[in-house]
């Protein structure tokens, strides 16, 4: 068992006042006050890489600043375990995976070991994603409130894997999903909480033009040519090959360049294979830039997003798609697949353009590259949409309300 230690200086809750207003922060403090004395233990599988770790890295210190005792621990697992959980992840997203009885046994064995060794401490146990879902076995003994937070798109899951996971989920007090169509038939309460981005993080703060230019120079980009960018983990579910195909359609009529940039997560052993495949597909085209961005290079990712003319997120499946919120927050016009949580962020023709195919993506890209005013209007709406609905302050509010609602299960209006 590992416990999170926050080395970097974090934003103070007061720093968000200029972005969301004083009254929003006052309201957060008022709700948090009602949770004083309660300890919340977040448990997931990794401290680094991927959206979950990123959100917890930001949320936990802010909850503490609000006076809520929030802690974050991870389960331990070896490569074989994470290979299995990756298969689970893909299967829950609806992909066909070959999962053997041994895989299920290994999953249970690692969970049991963690359940035995993990130091549980809290009034509310907040379990993230399927990897540690079986820790619920300790509920009877530890009591407290147990929440399962599902960050992935399980709108069309592999039935076998979902049934396996569901057997654990039903013992929780509540489940939390990122979008309405991820909800399942469950005998427990289900809440919808969208993830969020932190406007003060290195990945989302304002950058100087010098910083942006220096990053473009570092990667050999032509700053005078329009840039289409997809910033995402190298994963089949992000459809990087479809992105290249759409770009090639656009490139026939508009002189532009493509950035496919991303990092890797420690719990995703498949990314190397994907990267190799797209490098091969893009070889020989000087306008396609495949950039492997190391972890802790958030400024570079930010610079690439800010330098982009249009941002694309052509996912096949998506839990939420934090990169879309990041792009919208930067006021960029976005083209994205109408899947999962993306539909909550991109309201077609209001905050961006949705697409359903490679052709649809190419058509939307061409529209935005050729109509700057329309692109700017969408970008501006997108930024306000994120300010209202997808910033970390809204996320904090939802978590605090979730914890409170667990103690008031039968009421639709809770008076505090």
């Amino acid at each position, binding site marked *: 068992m590992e416990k999170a230690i926050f080395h970097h200086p974090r934003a103070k809750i007061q720093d968000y006042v200029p972005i969301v207003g004083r009254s929003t922060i006052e309201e957060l403090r*008022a709700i948090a006050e009602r949770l004083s004395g309660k300890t919340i233990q977040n448990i997931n599988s990794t401290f680094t890489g991927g959206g979950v770790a990123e959100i917890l890295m930001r949320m936990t210190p802010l909850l503490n600043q609000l006076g809520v005792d929030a802690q974050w621990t991870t389960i331990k697992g070896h490569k074989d375990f994470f290979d299995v959980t990756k298969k689970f992840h893909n299967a829950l997203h609806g992909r066909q995976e070959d999962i053997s009885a041994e895989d299920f046994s290994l999953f249970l064995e690692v969970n049991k070991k963690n359940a035995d060794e993990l130091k549980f401490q809290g009034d509310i146990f907040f379990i993230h994603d399927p990897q540690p879902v079986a820790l619920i076995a300790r509920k009877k003994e530890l009591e407290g409130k147990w929440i399962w937070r599902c960050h992935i798109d399980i709108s069309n899951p592999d039935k076998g894997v979902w049934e396996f996971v569901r057997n654990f989920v039903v013992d929780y007090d509540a489940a939390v999903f990122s979008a*309405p*169509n991820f909800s399942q038939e469950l005998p427990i309460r289900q809440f919808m909480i969208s993830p969020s981005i932190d406007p003060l993080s290195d990945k989302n703060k304002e950058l100087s033009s010098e910083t942006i230019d220096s990053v473009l120079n570092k990667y050999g980009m032509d700053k005078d040519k329009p840039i289409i960018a997809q910033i995402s983990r190298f994963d089949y579910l992000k459809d990087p090959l479809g992105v290249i195909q759409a770009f090639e359609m656009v490139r026939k009529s508009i002189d532009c360049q493509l950035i496919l940039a991303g990092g890797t997560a420690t719990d995703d052993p498949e990314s190397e294979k994907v990267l190799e495949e797209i490098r091969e597909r893009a070889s020989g085209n000087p306008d396609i830039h495949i950039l492997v961005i190391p972890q802790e290079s958030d400024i570079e990712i930010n610079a690439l997003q800010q330098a982009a003319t249009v941002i694309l997120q052509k996912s096949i499946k998506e839990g939420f798609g934090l990169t879309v919120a990041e792009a919208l927050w930067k006021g960029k016009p976005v083209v994205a697949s109408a899947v999962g949580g993306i539909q909550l962020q991109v309201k077609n023709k209001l905050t961006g353009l949705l697409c359903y195919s490679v052709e649809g993506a190419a058509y939307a890209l061409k529209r935005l590259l050729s109509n700057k005013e329309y692109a700017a209007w969408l970008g501006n709406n997108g930024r306000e949409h994120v300010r209202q609905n997808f910033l970390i302050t809204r996320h904090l509010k939802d978590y605090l309300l979730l914890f409170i609602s667990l103690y008031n299960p039968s009421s639709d209006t*809770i008076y505090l």
Partner: protein
Amino acid sequence: MIEWLNKNWLSITVPAIVFLAFFVVAIWARKTLYNYLDRLFVKITWEGSRILLHTTRAPFFQWCLIFGAYTAIQIATLSPHTKALTGRILGSIFFISLIWTVIILTERLLKLCLVKLKASPLLPITLIINVVRIAFAVVCILILLDIWGAPTTPLILLFTIGLLVLILASRNEIVNIFSGLQLAHGDLIKTGDYIKLESGEEGYVSDITWRNIQIKASDGRMLLVPNGKFTKTTVTTYREPFKKATQPFRFYTRLHIKELTGLKAKNLSELVSMLREVPDPVVYYHTHNFIEEYQYLIPQPANEFAVWVGDVIGDEILAEKLSNIDTFEFPSVGELRERIIAVINDGLSTRGDRRTAFEGREFHFIKSVSVVLTTPYIAHDLREFVEALRKVSINSLYFHIFESRLRLHKGINDFSIWLQDNLDERELADKIAALDPYNHTIEGLRSIIIQLIEKRIK
């Protein structure tokens, strides 16, 4: 010893007689002089006379004795060195006594004058008295040094530097003091006034001191604004007292979380069938969610049923009819639900259930779970109300305008109820109640209500 006395009796006796003579004269002079002054001051009826007489009576006698001792020593047969030394000692005692008396006298007279000025809150009495004490003490030290032949120039220089440093260090305080005096003189701000500074601070003035003005804000916070700030910024003062409400208005706020019901409809028949079954908070959520979620968009999108029917089912006619349902007409969620069902049924009977939503584009029924909290903002009159209205969150406005009207079955917004019942502001209450909140963004509503109240206040 006797021999020495026989030899020097004259040089002892004469100074002693002189000193005793001074002693007797001092008693007589004090009695005569003070009786005369007593009679004189009774005629001129000056309040400070008692202080003057009382403070100087004892020191006057002491000074006569000091002078007697000095004269006696001067005529005594002592060495010039001894005479000079005792002269310095007596001179020092005299000046210490004199300065001490002057300090006490000044202090007492100052207090008397300041009390008579009746401006004590803004005048730093203690500070003025301390400054006077220090000034006299410095003069005294300089005179003593002069008596004892010590150089005074370095000390004067040191005092001057110290004084400059002090002035420099406390320049803000000095600005505050002078601003306080200016405020007191100009009668610009009084306790009980409602003031508003350009920099944002506002509230009722609860206290005025020589350093700052204490303001009680509408959220209960006490703000201390340095007096100096009042000379640098625009201050709006509302002196006329506002009518106080019988009960103050406490602003609440409402936050909500979305609870998924697990129900989803893929066509109009399923939509209408589920719409009959779902609880009120679900209907409320789908007819109000857009108000908060898209508050930046003007005009805002229609209710979620209309948007889904238009975007996903593609029935633009039905979408238009659903968009046109005026939520403001309905006093309860139940009646609103019936109207939505009737409109969908009408569409089904004329055009049928033609299309099914793609997978992933179904209508998901969501319930809104509200958490209601108190805010620190309380209004006792219209001024406080309008100022709090500027500051409360949009969630608070939403609660008092939308939620309490429909979901909490009050039929009218909270502001109108309070204005009518507690301030007897019937006309203003009616104007706010007549606003259709569904035709405005929340910020737009805030702005309209503030304008209505400001107009009423003027």
